[in-house]
């Protein structure tokens, strides 16, 4: 006799009077494939956990964003934000699509050059640029975005020894009507510091002011803040033109567009509340076109969007390690994905899906990572179906920041694979092993062979 399909027995207390703000979920969503490739097949080949990048999603999302701006403004240039995800394979897809590179350190600068990006298509942001970094950037004709006066004077000093003029922009911070106000990067608009910096650059013979830049914040939930910022930068550009008869070549609106992930504490899911690329594009391009800048002198619009371009293209597959009950009988499930590799779980309520057929019965569950640390919580509370040890799970929208901010802590960082447009799998970053760490560590001679001495 054929045995029946088994489902774990479960008892759930009915809590009347505590309405769920999203209403009752009727069906557990299951995701068994990424771009048509079975999750099970990926794990069989590359183990668990494993990050997966969808080339198709990168290209589709990029085109969606590009078209949103290109259809509204004549000159648009994206620059890929390296810090969001600087895996070479990922960067190269963006460069193929036409993106320049936006880097914030000497390390990222080196990476961009190695990826074949010409020096004059690299934007160098960030508060930390060494003299060596600045010299390289000047020689390569990269765009240096100045963060503070110390950097400005360093560039003046270093460019004295160069035959080339430094191409610079200033980073401007300002009140855009949102809280918190980001004023730690660049020069302030309202107190006149930005205008002082522009004047200092304009009277220098060794620098050419090519652009104005701002980065108003991250995960911006309102497009209007960008309209305010674009108007203020346009006013600065116009003022520079009037005083020095000098056209600013580009205005760089930075990044900060929200992805569709849901922030912790948010009342509604991110995919319902975040502005679209069209919303951001409409706000920014309208502000520039309606500014006092003459139409034939409209600057190129640069965008350094990172999160909103890559988040949807990244997935993290993991598996269930164990189930247990907490002291209050609440279910806890331990998975092999910890906060060390899913750094964004500190601020997002990540969606988590079973990756195989499973029961439709759910329990209020806490999802813990595998680290021996109390902070290792992936979801405090999620209505989760009954999975058994070894079952696979899939976490979507993890493409931004996780593969750069991840920590090597307690366990090795896992494989990262890319699914190309033809559904082929490619390993793009190898799982670490002991050799990786041995190569970096040096044990002094007097500490060797401790156990042999005993």
């Amino acid at each position, binding site marked *: 006799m054929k045995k029946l399909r088994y489902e774990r*027995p479960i008892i759930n207390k009915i809590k009347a009077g505590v309405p769920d703000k999203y209403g009752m979920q009727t069906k557990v969503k299951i995701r068994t494939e990424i771009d048509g490739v079975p999750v099970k097949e990926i794990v069989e080949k590359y183990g668990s956990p494993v990050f997966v990048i969808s080339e198709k999603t990168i290209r589709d999302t990029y085109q969606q964003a590009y078209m949103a701006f290109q259809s509204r403004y004549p000159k648009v240039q994206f620059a890929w934000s390296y810090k969001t995800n600087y895996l070479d394979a990922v960067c190269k897809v963006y460069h193929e699509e036409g993106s320049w590179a936006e880097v914030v350190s000497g390390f990222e600068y080196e990476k961009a050059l190695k990826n074949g990006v010409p020096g004059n298509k690299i934007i160098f942001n960030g508060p930390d640029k060494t003299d060596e970094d600045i010299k390289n950037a000047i020689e390569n004709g990269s765009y240096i975005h100045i963060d503070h006066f110390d950097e400005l004077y360093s560039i003046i000093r270093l460019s004295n020894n160069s035959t080339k003029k430094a191409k610079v922009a200033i980073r401007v911070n300002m009140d855009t009507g949102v809280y918190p106000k980001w004023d730690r990067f660049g020069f302030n608009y309202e107190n006149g510091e930005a205008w002082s910096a522009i004047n200092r650059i304009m009277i220098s013979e060794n620098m050419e002011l090519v652009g104005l830049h701002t980065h108003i914040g991250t995960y911006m939930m309102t497009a209007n803040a960008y309209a305010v910022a674009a108007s203020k930068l346009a006013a600065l550009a116009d003022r520079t033109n009037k005083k020095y008869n000098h056209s600013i070549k580009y205005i760089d609106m930075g990044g900060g567009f929200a992805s569709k992930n849901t922030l912790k504490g948010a009342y509604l899911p991110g995919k319902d509340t975040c502005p679209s690329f069209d919303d951001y594009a409409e706000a920014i391009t309208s502000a520039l076109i309606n500014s006092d800048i003459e139409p034939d002198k409209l600057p190129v619009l640069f965008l350094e969007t990172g999160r909103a371009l890559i988040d949807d293209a990244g997935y993290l597959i993991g598996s269930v390690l164990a189930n247990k009950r907490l002291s209050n009988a609440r279910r806890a499930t331990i998975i092999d994905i910890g906060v060390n590799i899913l750094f964004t779980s500190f601020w997002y309520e990540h969606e988590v899906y079973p990756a195989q057929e499973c029961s439709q019965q759910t329990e209020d569950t806490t999802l813990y990572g595998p680290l021996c640390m109390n902070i290792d919580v992936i979801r405090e509370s999620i209505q989760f179906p009954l999975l058994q040890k070894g079952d696979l799970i899939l976490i979507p929208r993890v493409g931004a920041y996780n593969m750069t901010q991840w920590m090597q802590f307690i366990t090795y960082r896992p494989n990262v694979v890319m699914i190309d447009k033809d559904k082929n799998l490619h390993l793009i970053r190898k799982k670490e092993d002991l050799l990786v760490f041995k190569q970096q560590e040096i044990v002094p001679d007097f500490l060797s062979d401790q156990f042999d001495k005993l």
Partner: protein
Amino acid sequence: MKLKSNIAVSENGFMFDPYTGDSYNLNETAVEILKLLKSGKTNEEIIEHFKEKYDVDDATLEQNIYDFIAMLNHYDLIEKQ
């Protein structure tokens, strides 16, 4: 081990505890366990019954059954010895 008397369990998995006024949802396998408990079966007999009827490995089944019984205890649905 015995389920407290007066606890009502419907065929479709609705359970009511008149002592506390609490209600519970159960899935099919949980209803089956409660029926077996009510008919006086021991934990071991229940496990044996499930092994024969369902496609499940021994370790998973044993863990799941004892976890379920722990939950019945947690909700104070089992008669104290």
